[in-house]
């Protein structure tokens, strides 16, 4: 059985030539839609004035030359170019589909351009998997980031651009209400701001060094109002937990596991457990930190069983 780790280095799209040569009408159409008035895309003389041989294509248009366009929607994903796709692509799609990652969104594109394209160039592309991430919780849903390298070549086989391309393949969340907003004030803002950066912190008294959570303005041990924040290791164990069934808040999936986790540092916090069924949770179970990006401005620490961590 193939696993996600096995896909690194595998070709998922053999060399495939775009349907149209680089041409001025498509360039003009692109520049018009983008609102790009750079004369080198529409005026031969202006382009030559910059030392170019004539009209060039915008660098960012590289990928468009190899898009299948409307044909992809009519013929379906297995037709056309995909019919010639490597076995790797079909295997990867099958694996992703089996795990319910039915949705896709592009998250990163890193282009290095080797030369500008001019009318008449024929662009081909070949795609190889670089890496596939462990399952991640994102604002869109749970999924894996698939990173590939797309190499663009011209009619002579010369590389014209290299693109690192990252897609999130994910299980879409059901349309959910946003989670209840925390009331953020001067005493707790640091904690939620750190969480947005995926850092779990614990308030630490600057006077006596005592860690405290939930945070407060003043140390109950020494009375100091001075404090900083220590970064937690992210390891802990389940101290107690509940499985919520009723009432149901539209932000959550039920049954919902809420736990009090005791961190290795000694403080406890209320959190959610993920990657585990309600019936499998036990008090004392070792857990490790993960992050839930609930929505663009709310990230929350959640925990998953230590044994369930992917290598």
């Amino acid at each position: 059985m193939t696993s996600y780790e096995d896909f690194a280095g595998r070709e998922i799209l053999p060399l495939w030539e775009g349907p149209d040569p680089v041409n001025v009408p498509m360039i003009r159409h692109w520049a018009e839609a983008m609102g790009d008035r750079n004369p080198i895309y529409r005026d031969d003389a202006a382009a030559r004035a910059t030392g170019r041989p004539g009209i060039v294509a915008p660098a960012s248009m590289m990928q468009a030359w190899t898009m299948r366009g409307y044909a992809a929607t009519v013929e379906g994903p297995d037709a056309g170019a995909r019919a010639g796709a490597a076995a790797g692509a079909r295997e990867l799609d099958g694996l992703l589909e089996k795990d319910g990652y039915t949705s896709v969104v592009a998250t990163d594109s890193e282009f290095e351009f080797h030369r500008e394209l001019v009318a008449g160039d024929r662009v081909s592309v070949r795609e190889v998997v670089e890496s596939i991430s462990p399952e991640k919780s994102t604002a869109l849903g749970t999924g894996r980031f698939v990173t590939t390298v797309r190499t663009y070549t011209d009619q002579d086989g010369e590389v014209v651009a290299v693109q690192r391309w990252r897609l999130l393949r994910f299980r879409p969340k059901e349309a959910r209400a946003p989670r209840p907003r925390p009331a953020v004030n001067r005493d707790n803002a640091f904690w939620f701001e750190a969480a947005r950066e995926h850092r779990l912190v614990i308030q630490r008294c600057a006077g006596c060094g005592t860690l405290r959570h939930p945070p407060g303005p003043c140390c109950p041990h020494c009375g100091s109002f001075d404090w900083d924040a220590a970064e937690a290791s992210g390891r802990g164990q389940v101290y107690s937990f509940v499985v919520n069934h009723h009432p149901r808040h539209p932000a959550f999936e039920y049954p919902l596991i809420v736990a009090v986790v005791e961190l290795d540092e000694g403080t406890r916090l209320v959190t959610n457990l993920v990657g585990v069924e309600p019936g499998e949770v036990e008090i004392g179970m070792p857990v490790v930190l993960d992050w839930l990006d609930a929505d663009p401005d709310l990230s929350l620490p959640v925990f998953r069983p230590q044994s369930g961590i992917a290598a």
Partner: protein
Amino acid sequence: MSGFSGAAAIAGIGATEFSKDSGRSELRLACEAVLAAVADAGLKPSDVDGMVTFTADTNAEIHVARSTGMRDLTFFSRIPHGGGAACGTVQQAALAVATGVADVVVCYRAFNERSGVRYGLGQADGPAETGADSAAYAWLTPFGLSTPAQWVAMFARRYMHEYGATSEDFGRVAVVDRRHAATNPAAWFYRRPITLEDHQASRWIAEPLHLLDCCQETDGGQALVVVSAERARDLPHPPAVVLGAAQGSGDDQHMMTSYYRPRITGIPEMGLVGRQLYAQSGLGPADMDAAILYDHFTPLVLPQLEELGFCAPGEAKDFVAEGNLELGGRLPFNTHGGQLGEAYLHGMNGIAEAVRLVRGTSVNQPEGVRNVIVTAGTGVPTSGLVLGADR
């Protein structure tokens, strides 16, 4: 015995009916309950010079006083922390009476908690306010921990883990409550007892809590009148003398979520209340003839029995299973049916039942009751009373 023990007594009790939809304003419920209590005491509203209620109550003193015909008030006070306030209202009244600050103090609580704003639906959609009370919810509601049942379930799970208690042990508390309610015509669950099997078969609310571990929600009002013990002796009913009245807030106290203490199987604030009650009254657990223990959720009845000295830590499950809470048992418990069985009136209806027990007029009156211990809300800063027959 402390300075004010024996100095004050509850002389009147009055309530509205307990329903799911009162059909009238909370202020009207408050006025009805207050007037009934004043009448039960054989007094007139104009005799009242003190008022105590909960900070959670929406019926400000002046509106109740103006509406019911009270005149000059020399004492008014409010107790915070939800249901934890119940017995604290009587303590305030007793202190006022004992020190001469007031002669007749009315304690009251009235709300449309079932047909209006329901606590049971949780705090998740609270308003965007960032005071300390709101910020405390920031550690809970974004994770979906937002209702009292869920908060209590977290304690219950740990209690089960450390002491080997089971869901059935919690269920036995509900069964006793409902058995007593079944013979109380004022109870919502009058004539509707349950079995342990019913409890086990009821649906999950927040594991390990079943539906039948959770109290109902109620519309209604309840009031009490406190006067000096001396004066109470001239009034129609036998006085229920306030032998002890205490409040308690523990170390590292949170609202329903004190999960950060070294141990969370006990209720330290209730232990604090109990020690004060016994010191004030000069009595001990062995002197208590009945108990009205706060029972919004069954699991926290067990550690109350432990904190109040009726059994050792971890042994409440055996104390309950041995039948000690039954009418013929060592410590008849929640003879009105408790909040699970009679009504959820934030603990105030339990104080009224304790008065009836001292008067000898409970519908489930055990033999020879002289002293009754009453507790208020658990998981929050709380309060307690020892009421006794005149001696």
